[in-house]
């Protein structure tokens, strides 16, 4: 199969106004991915499916990922002049990563038996601009997986034929797979908890006002 650079070099001239980023991946398997702007996603997906050299006709897996707004700390080595002597000092640089939701498509080819090509789409933020184009018109297999992502992450797929909750009930409010979701507090703790469980249990249940008041026995 072609490398991602070759794919990118072929897509960008044939689909004008399209910009594709390559996301690095440091793990030994090293599956890098194509990051596509939401507005051009349908065109790119159609290209990947129909192109004769790629024929990615099989969309195996669709995943939703939540990236809340976080501060990323990276160590940077810097050369500093300390009293006239040049020294190497490690400095921690903080960068703010904006929050967004991400949808990842793993594409394979059943005709040519190669793959995967990983395609990523990103929403603008996590609150009000969570729209992405649905790729169900290109790969039918994405339909229920996109519904699941809508249900659990709250990504709204424009052009999806039947966007309803899939796993939770219809009256449910909220998106439980997001990292800041707080589950309802219905745990049941043992009567004699210890350590950190005790702190959690105290928060949930009031401690009995008087310990073990024996009922009065009528004489």
């Amino acid at each position, binding site marked *: 199969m072609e490398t991602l650079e070759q794919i990118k070099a072929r897509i960008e001239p044939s689909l004008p106004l399209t910009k594709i980023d390559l996301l690095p991946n*440091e793990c030994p398997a090293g*599956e890098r991915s194509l990051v596509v702007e939401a507005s051009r996603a349908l065109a790119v997906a159609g290209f990947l499916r129909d192109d004769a050299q790629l024929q990615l006709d099989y969309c195996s897996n669709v995943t939703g990922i939540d990236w809340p707004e976080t501060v990323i700390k990276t160590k940077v080595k810097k050369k500093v002049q300390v009293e006239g002597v040049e020294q190497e000092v490690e400095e921690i640089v903080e960068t703010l990563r904006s929050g967004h939701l991400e949808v990842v498509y793993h594409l394979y080819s059943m005709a040519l038996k190669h793959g995967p090509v990983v395609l990523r789409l990103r929403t603008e933020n996590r609150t009000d601009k969570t729209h992405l184009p649905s790729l169900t018109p290109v790969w039918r*297999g994405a339909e229920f997986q996109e519904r699941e992502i809508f249900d659990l992450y709250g990504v709204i797929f424009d052009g999806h034929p039947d966007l309803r909750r899939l796993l*939770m009930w219809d009256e449910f409010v909220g998106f439980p797979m997001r990292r800041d979701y707080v589950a309802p507090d219905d745990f049941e703790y043992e009567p004699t908890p210890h350590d950190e469980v005790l702190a959690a249990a105290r928060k949930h249940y009031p401690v009995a006002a008087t310990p073990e008041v024996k009922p009065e026995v009528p004489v």
Partner: protein
Amino acid sequence: MNSFADLPKSGYEVRPKIAPDGAPLGELLEISIGPHHPSTHGVFRMDVVLDGETVVKLKPVFGYLHRNHEKIAENISYLSSMPYTDRLDYFCSMTNNWAYALTVEKLAGLAVPERAEYIRVIMAELTRLQNHTCLIGFFAQDMGALGTPLMYAFREREKILDLFESVSGARMMCNYMRFGGVRVDVSGEWLAQTKKIVSDYRKFLDEFETFLTQNEILMARTQGVGVLPRELAISASITGPMLRAAGVNYDLRKVDKYGIYRRFDFQVPVGAHGDIYDRYMVRVLEMRESVKILQSALADIPAGPVMDPKAKLRGFRPKAGEVYGRIEGPKGELGFYLISDGSPNPYRYRVRPPSLINLTILEDMCLGQKISDAVVILGSVDIVLGEVDR
């Protein structure tokens, strides 16, 4: 696509059937099959609209067994998720373990010793045997063969579960594979016992096929019913025996050649019509191929360690990165997608459930069929709700 707001929430409802020009044409019956129904293989619900006995609309409803596997796995360490994978598809805990172990090995770059690879193949093929056997039993039960084929299937399943139990300690939830190998080695007696059960399995398959393959009722109920066209199967990401019955030669054991599958000589059975009968035949033939793989694996298994000495069970922190790993489970492509951020827990843990994705074309297969056939079509898909809803 039609609108769905008018489907009933539960129970049944009778609605007038109206021709496009407004003339009344009789009545449509809307019923909800499940989530408690003997033929739904668990807690699965279908909202069905019937015209007489013919299905005109069918909407699957999921989530009655959604037990938050992915969310829980993101809050615990990599190894702690291993027992949870057992409970995904609770017929095939061994292949689930393998898929997860394989993905983490890809993520962390671990090697698996030779003997462990053979043990994994043996376990996976035994799982395939018992899964397909039980599926055919359940599916015959859906057609009205109450009990008998299922009794035969469970008789054989118990033998395989005894093997699993003697090596892992549990009948169903084996929790046997580890990152970089398997938990405990198998003994010589175990291998001898397995050899005996595997060679007897051919006889059992012959017996099973005598009763079913040429059976008049089975043929009448399944041939030409629930046809899945090749193009739809590919576009809808169908995998496993369903896909191969539709005529696509795509078996990950041949395509990815994960583990040591390149060493075994086996064929991939492919159907021609894509109907239920083909799905049944593909499974039966796959079991015969599994017996072949098992026999050569049991003959060639080398001695040696079963764990990679570099593998760390405690304090396991893979480097940041992401990986997608997949194997050919008995139900189809079982994949795991992991994102590591360098901490002991995965940042994102996703299961690609073959049962759920194979169910998505249920409506296409059932439209225009009789309601009693819809039950058989569902039976031929091979679903386990633990994996559908996770």
